[in-house]
């Protein structure tokens, strides 16, 4: 009896977790002109409207570009930091960990504000992408770090010693032993980073330059003034895009969560 109650409870929670997403996706098929639920008939018309809307496409392109750049930067920096923390840091180990996780623990709003003042102080303000990219790098860094550090936990120091005994210098060890080991962690981390960057609102909202817009911001604007299901169609598309990115990455680069 207890098992059933427990199991049911858990499924209710899972439903709770999926509900808003499901609702949005369903609402996008609404044939009517208003965002009602249940939908008044099913239709793809709002998808067509969205496909014609250059504003959203520009926003998607911007989001993709920012996410790619930020992920590339965090990927390198975060991986290097994780390798340092797990393999080399002795007394500084905890400090490095907290520092790398700091952007996650500090309120995103505060970090965004801080960066805003910073770029204004530098004189460039929100013109150009420095503030925006810097902000996205900051919020994605912890995810890369955590993922790579986790995959390094299972790294046996003896492998490095064995490679040394067989004549491998530092570069060879890094390329042949370390890199293959952390590949799943790096890929997982970068994937997380990409999606987090793509979906983040607050950071982009405060640091974007006039005239540019990321997808979440565009959606937010729309939601406040526009009550058609077009925004729902855009949202569904965004969810699908994230899903595709995850699946493709897994297939092509091999996420391989399996332990050795």
């Amino acid at each position, binding site marked *: 009896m207890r098992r059933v109650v*427990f199991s049911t409870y858990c499924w209710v929670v899972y439903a709770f977790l999926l509900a808003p997403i499901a609702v949005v996706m369903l609402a996008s098929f609404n044939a009517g002109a208003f965002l009602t639920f249940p939908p008044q008939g099913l239709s793809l018309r709002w998808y067509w409207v969205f496909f014609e809307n250059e504003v959203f496409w520009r926003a998607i392109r911007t989001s993709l570009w920012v996410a790619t750049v930020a992920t590339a930067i965090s990927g390198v920096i975060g991986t290097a930091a994780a390798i340092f923390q797990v393999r080399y840091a002795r007394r500084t180990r905890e400090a490095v960990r907290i520092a790398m996780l700091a952007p996650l623990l500090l309120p995103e709003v505060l970090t965004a504000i801080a960066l805003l003042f910073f770029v204004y102080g530098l004189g460039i303000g929100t013109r150009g992408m420095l503030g925006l990219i810097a902000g996205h790098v*900051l919020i994605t860094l912890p995810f890369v770090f955590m993922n790579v550090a986790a995959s390094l936990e299972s790294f046996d120091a003896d492998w490095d010693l064995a490679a040394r005994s067989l004549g491998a210098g530092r570069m060879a060890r890094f390329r042949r032993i370390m890199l293959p080991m952390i590949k799943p962690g790096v890929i997982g981390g970068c994937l997380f980073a990409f999606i987090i960057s793509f979906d983040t609102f607050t950071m982009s909202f405060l640091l974007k330059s006039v005239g540019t817009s990321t997808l979440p911001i565009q959606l*937010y604007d729309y939601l406040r003034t526009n009550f058609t299901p077009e925004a729902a169609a855009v949202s569904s598309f965004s969810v699908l895009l994230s899903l595709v990115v995850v699946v493709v990455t897994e297939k092509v680069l091999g996420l391989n969560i399996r332990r050795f």
Partner: protein
Amino acid sequence: MRKAPLLLILPAALVLLAFLVVPYLNIVLMSLRVPGSGVPYAPGWTLGNYAKFFSDRFYLEQLANTLWIGVATTLACLLVGYPVAVQLARGTGAMRGLRYGIVLAPLLVGIVIRSYGWTILLGNNGVINRTLLGWGLIEGPLPLMYNGLGIIIALTHVLLPFMILPIMGAVQGIDPQLELAARSLGAGRNTAFRRVVLPMSLPGVQSGCTLVFILAISAYVTPALIGGLRVKTAAVSVVDALIDGFQWPFGSAMALILAVVGGLCVVGFQRATRIGWAVRR
């Protein structure tokens, strides 16, 4: 030979220093500047921004309200998320991957979309109310939008993964043999769980609560969309002051007060729960 490893941490250190540490210090400075009209700030230094905050009842109430929302959300996440975390930690098989994916899915979907979904669900004409009305369970629509309750519900949804994952991690780290040992000594399944697993999962609970609380009080998008113009949390007020009102010094002071108060709550919480631990051991 010793130097090379330091090169690994150098980029991260520089990035954090330049874009996190320095800017944060700058906020502190900014909060002490004199407000300007038409420009972000005027020359000179003052403590007036803090005075303005603490002397205005509106802001104090808003802060208290925000903290309350944080606490409520944390409790809700704990109650809702703990069983799921345990199930995930112990589960095996194909379903496990699916469940794990469902828990992570909200994180990967984007805050705006999620909050948007909640607006559809919570409105007077929203899914929940129409369903309940349709089944005859209630007579009038429940006010779930544009108030604290709606914000709490939506925030719980948004932050649930942050409660589930640390607890799951803690439970996974518990040696399964410990529970078997308890049962071999005569404890029933539930007792074994209560006396062995539960206490050992508490560090995960502590991490989860801390994380959720901090994220809840500093959340922006969700309270903005759900609370609308009627209910504003402190974070929303801060952004308003900065973007719409151009009041950089005051906005900074507000933001810092929020962060510090939140931080004190967390420290107090960690102290309180740590003492309990020490006694128990």
